[in-house]
């Protein structure tokens, strides 16, 4: 149990560092969301409750990093993770496709709020939503293919 907690904490730390770097050191218009990918991957692997809990905390952390309104990302993550929990996804290919779809929904949902007042025109929204989903899709493939191996090696080394 302790071992699992340690691994999760380690993963959260790595994901948070990556997300922080993206927010603060890269000057891209659209940046991928490591938090969203991580939460969705957890949910697909069956850790739904944990994923929901982490949605709350990582959402707060995300708002803190992005200097947004605290709590707003938590709501988005919670909704996306909750709906994603109804799908059973096993293979890397499926995971990547589902993450693409959920990232797309997340992006559209994030930018169709009342406060934003539809400042994005449909075409631009679609363009950036696809771009955002594509980034997440690529990262998922990378994580899913390489991280498992790395994780295994870490586990062998430390435990």
């Amino acid at each position, binding site marked *: 149990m302790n071992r699992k907690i340690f691994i999760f904490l380690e993963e959260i730390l790595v994901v948070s560092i990556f997300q922080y770097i993206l927010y603060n050191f890269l000057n891209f218009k659209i940046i991928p969301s490591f938090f969203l990918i991580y939460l969705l991957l957890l949910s697909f692997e069956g850790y*739904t*409750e944990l994923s*929901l*809990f982490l*949605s*709350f905390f990582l*959402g*707060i952390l995300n708002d803190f990093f992005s200097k947004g*309104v*605290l*709590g*707003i990302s*938590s*709501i988005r993550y*919670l*909704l996306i993770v*909750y709906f994603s*929990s109804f799908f059973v996804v096993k293979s890397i290919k499926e995971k990547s496709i589902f993450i693409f779809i959920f990232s797309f929904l997340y992006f559209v949902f994030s930018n169709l709020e009342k406060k934003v007042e539809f400042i994005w025109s449909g075409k631009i929204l679609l363009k950036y939503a696809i771009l955002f989903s594509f980034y997440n899709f690529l990262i998922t493939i990378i994580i899913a293919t390489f991280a498992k191996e790395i994780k295994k090696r870490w586990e062998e080394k430390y435990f």
Partner: protein
Amino acid sequence: MLWRFRKELIFLILLFFSFIIEKRTLNIRKNKSLPQIKNQYFFNYDEIIEENKRLREILNLKEKKIISKFNVAEVIGISPYIFPGEIIINKGIKDGIKKNMIAVTKDLFLIGKVEEIMDNYSKIISIFNKKTRISVIVSSTKEIGIIEGGYAPFVLLKYIPYDSKIKIGDDIYTSGFSEYYFYGIKIGKVYKIERNRDSLFLKIWVKPYVSSLGFKEVIICE
């Protein structure tokens, strides 16, 4: 029974907390920005618009190449409060202000010249200052005289011959026969002409344009 819906329960509880946090953050942000909004009501928007207008006019001078090299400074002090003899501006050596540069209004009416310079501010002596002596020309007769300060709200035009055809309302501007003032800067209009039989010259009172204009920005040029 509840255990079966644990996912939904966790989801709803966390969603509820997220909404509370979001609401609170929004309220805090709203309260923080409220004083700024309140302050906006105390702004004199007319004054801001006027300032904008004045600065645009100054910019036009450069675009129309009426004067090419100049500095715009803000008046931060005047003495005395009416018809000031000394004007303090917020620019000094650091901003490229030099001694004896000319100060004019945005309409290119003469204010005076820079007398003292510090790092960040300068002192201008205006045409009302009793130290002021400027070589001028009368627009209608092209006669040359000397403007003397110290007679606020007017300035005294001296050395215009007794038989001059100068008349009230004539424009007076700088003659250019001076080390500091170039030709053609408008100073004022002839207000009153006194003829003294004992003197060879007329005593002419000139009403400077700057006396009737409140100036908040001055143009400093060479």
